[in-house]
């Protein structure tokens, strides 16, 4: 069924995509636990940053490449902060679904803006310096972007774990995630901590935008915007709280999805993109098998 000589290159590619899933998942999960907002605009914001980077590199002659890459992260952070500071507080009285619908509206606006600004201009591609440099391992070509993605995912998840445990803001984030109202009563500056969570998520958003462009090899706005849906799979598998479970789930999804491409049969290859959805649906339904209806009317999963 599988051509074993092709397994390794797909493993590398799978690990790189798993790393992007892991970084996206970390940004989404920490933000959700701290603010109650599942940021559906994560992909759209990253895509906007990446398109601005392309515009600066290809359409201007004054901007050095490194500044254009920084601009991607800055723009993504600014857009995320704009939503988090200006719009999100207005949905504070909504349930998580209502809050998510708000980000969905923001994603549609950004997608419409990108289509209006750049869709007519085809061949929108830029390569990171790490994307053009390669080395060989076991007869497989590996780009430095793939290596950077995996290392960066490790650093991000490890760093966030340490940050949440060892710093004052991290402890405040965990307190808010546990019980927002009690944390507020105990003097935790909820709004400031939430802003920090939006800031961190925005930075990750920009980095994921850059890496995705380099890994996909194109700036397809729709694909990048809706990349958030498969990226949610590890978050759901982690039950929206277990960072390291999400991390390993992300890599598992990335590797399985990529390895199905190595199959000699048509159907696993054709349907490989269903991998994150199948993983997530099975996990969520498994976790929900013992559901309890609470007296307050809220239903636990």
């Amino acid at each position, binding site marked *: 069924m599988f051509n074993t000589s092709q397994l390794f290159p797909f493993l590398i590619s799978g690990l790189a995509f798993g790393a992007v899933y892991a970084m996206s998942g970390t940004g989404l999960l920490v933000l959700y636990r701290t603010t109650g907002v599942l940021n559906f605009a994560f992909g759209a914001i990253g895509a906007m940053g990446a398109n601005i980077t392309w515009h600066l590199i290809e359409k201007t002659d004054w901007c050095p490449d490194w500044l254009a890459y920084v601009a991607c992260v800055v723009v993504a952070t600014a857009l995320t902060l704009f939503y988090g500071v200006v719009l999100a507080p207005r949905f504070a009285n909504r349930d998580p679904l209502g809050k998510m619908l708000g980000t969905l509206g923001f994603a549609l606006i950004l997608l419409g803006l990108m289509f209006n600004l750049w869709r007519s201009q085809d061949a929108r591609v830029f390569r990171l310096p790490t994307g053009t440099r390669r080395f060989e391992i076991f007869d497989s070509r590996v780009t430095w972007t793939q290596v950077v993605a995996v290392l960066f995912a490790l650093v991000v998840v490890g760093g966030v774990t340490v940050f949440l445990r060892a710093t004052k803001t991290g402890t405040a984030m965990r307190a808010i995630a546990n019980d927002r109202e009690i944390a507020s009563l105990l003097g935790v500056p909820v709004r400031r901590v939430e802003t920090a969570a939006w800031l961190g998520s925005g930075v990750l958003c920009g980095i994921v935008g850059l890496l995705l462009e380099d890994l996909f090899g194109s700036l397809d706005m729709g694909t990048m915007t809706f990349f958030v849906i498969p990226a949610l799979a590890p978050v759901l598998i982690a039950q929206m709280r277990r960072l390291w479970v999400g991390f390993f789930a992300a890599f598992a999804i990335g590797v399985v999805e990529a390895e199905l491409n190595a199959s000699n049969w048509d159907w696993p290859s054709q349907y490989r993109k269903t991998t994150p959805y199948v993983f997530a649906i099975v996990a969520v339904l498994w976790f929900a098998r013992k559901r309890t209806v609470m007296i307050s009317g809220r*239903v636990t999963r």
Partner: protein
Amino acid sequence: MTTMEAAPPADAAAVVVPSRFGRRAAIQAAIIVVILVVAMFVLPALTSTFWVKNFTSAAVLAIVAAATGMLYGRVGLVALGQIGLYGVGTWVTMRLGFATDWPYPVLILVAGAITAVIGVLLGLPALRLHGLYLALVTLMAAAAFLIILANTKFPTGGPGFRGVVIEVANSRQMRRPDIAETDYGYYRYALVVAVLMFALAAAHLVSKPGRAWASIRQSEAAALAAGVNTVTYKLWAWALASFMTGCAGALLAGHVGSPSTFTFTVEQNIILMAVVVMGGVASLWGGVIAGLLAAVLPEVLQDWGFSSNWTLILFGTGLLTNLLITSWQLDKAGIKE
């Protein structure tokens, strides 16, 4: 000694249904009839074939939007995967349409029934979920289904289960009903089916299932305590919404003839939810508004010289504005969801 028997009414007229209700219902019925007459006879006479096709799309999408809105607004179930079921309805209709000589109404009913069965099979495990988790699982199920659909492709009159013709030149278009072969005729046909679907939904909402759904939406625990079989009624809602969506898919098959899998994307699921929220989920009229927004607004914008990409910005802004207004109203009333 006191008695538990109720005292007879002093005046027999007091128990008669209040005339205001009767008058209100009559006015509503009259408005609906006038709108239908205008939509069915006046609108086609005043517009070109291009616009009639768009209004047909609006009638079809209104059914899907009404089903989604009914689930969200009346039962409290958020389905972000209706476009997937819409695709099932279209696929089943095309496959049966090429394989049999069944009359079109039978095709619509069978497509609706099969979609309802698939919807229930998917909904049964998903009903253990609520709110955000249900929305995400339905969206992911739809995303997975749409990948399968993109690979399976719509039947084109070929042999086998998939019914796909290898040579494109030999592919066939889906037939239309004998009484509605022209675009104008098919528009009226779609409108009649849409009215029947809305009537079906309205009949449910004003009867026992509608009351059970309202109690589930308010509080599932309270509904259980009141003796409502929450599983049955939630599945019932799911089946009805899937049936309506499947019937809409059947209408789409005849409308476009050879649908593209690009019509069914994850993006469409998101846009559908945006227009459903913009149209309003408290009333079935929201479905009509949503159908018009999704199908006609992009063409109106293009007619005025704007890119249809602006609709994404409008839908996003509309969704955000709607949420901001309702959040402000909740805030004013001191309610937290």
